[in-house]
């Protein structure tokens, strides 16, 4: 235990050093470097918290199945390219199980689906975006569950956010600065995909939210999973 804690202290001391040192070293690309550090830094504390707290083996397996479902969903709907339920499943997990499980499922879905669809420098940013979208949905669980319109709006927001983050990173990396011409060019080129993301998010959220939500509610009621003492704001 002490050894593990020590490793983490080292980690957290090391990372700001790496971020600042890297920015000084990679002068031309310091925007890109810092944005990479931000993406990684966002994931680390949440993962650390997840590692530290008690999680039952059944809860771990439920998270694992939800992650697998979002990865498999990418295969299942491969006949419609770009149409994927990853965001929807992440958001649904967050709405029913909380912000942290949402973050975990989102970030791991990005990492794992890229084992099949190709890893690259975009992986940390996908992990960051999907994780953040999951975490945010967990914080907004109550309003999102009350109204379908808000849920749809969140789906559209998620699609646009995801696409904009990716383009921003590409711009920083390719130009070393915020080149508005490249950014707008990339956004224009990615516009059809952005629209497809938004549409597929809305579609999957509408179709899957209640069926999967009911199943998760049932699991929580039947097996008493994901009941944390500090979560008095149980949405029910």
């Amino acid at each position, binding site marked *: 235990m002490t050894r*593990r804690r020590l*490793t983490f202290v080292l980690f957290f001391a090391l990372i700001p050093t790496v971020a600042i040192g*890297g920015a*000084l*070293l*990679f*002068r*031309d*690309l310091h925007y*890109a*470097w810092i944005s990479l550090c931000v993406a990684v830094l966002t994931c680390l504390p949440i*993962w650390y918290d*997840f*590692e530290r707290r008690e*999680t*039952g*083996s*059944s*809860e*771990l*397996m*439920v*998270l*694992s*199945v939800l*992650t*697998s*479902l979002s*990865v*498999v*969903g990418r*295969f*299942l*709907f491969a006949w419609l390219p770009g149409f994927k*339920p990853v965001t929807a499943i992440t958001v649904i997990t967050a709405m029913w199980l909380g912000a942290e499980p949402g973050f*975990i499922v989102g970030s*791991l879905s990005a990492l*794992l689906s890229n*084992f*099949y669809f*190709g*890893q*690259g*420098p975009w992986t940390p940013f996908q992990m960051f975006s999907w994780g953040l979208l999951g975490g945010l949905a967990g914080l907004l669980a109550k309003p999102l569950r009350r109204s379908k319109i808000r849920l749809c709006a969140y789906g559209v927001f998620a699609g646009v956010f995801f696409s904009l983050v990716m383009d921003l990173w590409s711009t920083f*990396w*390719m*130009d*070393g600065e915020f*080149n508005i*011409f*490249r950014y707008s*060019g990339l956004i224009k080129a990615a516009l059809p995909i952005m629209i497809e993301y938004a549409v597929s998010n809305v579609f999957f959220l509408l*179709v*899957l939210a209640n*069926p*999967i939500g009911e*199943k*998760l509610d049932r*699991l929580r009621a039947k*097996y008493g999973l994901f009941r944390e003492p500090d979560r008095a704001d149980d949405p029910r």
Partner: protein
Amino acid sequence: MITFRQRHPSVPLALLLSVLLLTMFGQSPMLTVPAFAGAVLFLTAIGIRGLSPDSGSTLKSVLGYLILWILVTVTNPLFSTGGATPLAFVNGRPYTLEALLYGAHLGTMLIAVLLWFRCERSLVPEENRFFLFGRIAPKLALLISTVLRFVPLLRRRAAAMRNAQTAVGVYDDPDWLNRTKSHMTTMSALTTWSLEHAIDAGASMKARGYGLPGRTTYRTCRFGAKDALCMIAVVALTAVTVLSLARGGLHYDWYPSITTKRPDGIDRAGVIAFSILCLMPFLSYLKEEIRWSFYRSKM
């Protein structure tokens, strides 16, 4: 000596991280070209032996990379108009030689990075990844390994349900709405089935003592003297490269015209060190290959 398959997994991981970060952020053709060459040599070598974990046709991917490279090169001047040598004017904006060359550099960097990500699968195989991360983050490592097991399982289950539904006659409905609906039915049933399975798996893990202290890993590796030697080599080569980067010796000014400092000894050393680093996976593979052939011929 350096044979990465036998080395402690932290050595190839350190090498990979160093090469990737320096290629991605070093912003110098003196680094991207060796990185590109190292990855191509390694991937070709393991590809010839059929050891590459990638399926997919080689010709297709080579063509894909070539198209990507041309695309990045040709479009870069449209985005950045710096540069003193206009070749043409597009929409009233200059299309410059410098921007074109910067695009070529950018394309090389992109492809080098993508190729090194492909090398990653051979350099740090899955079980080694779990060995490394299983200690620092056991829960995440467990999640990752179970997901990798669940994905094929869930795909098989989805296929089984799809077959059943096709037999009933609802799956191949020409109406796309009905077809999507039946996909959704599959997805829903898959969710129920898999979540129930997850509860069982969780209970069974608990029964077998998951979470108790003193857990061991499937793969056991010890960090020996040779590993230390290799690690020192990787760190030293990285340090030399970083030193020459920090002195600005590898720095290129692309706009308005391409200028670079005259390289001195340390800059040359930096480029050589980075080239050796990039060639290490290939050289270690080559050495294994020679040794293998040599021993065979003696028998």
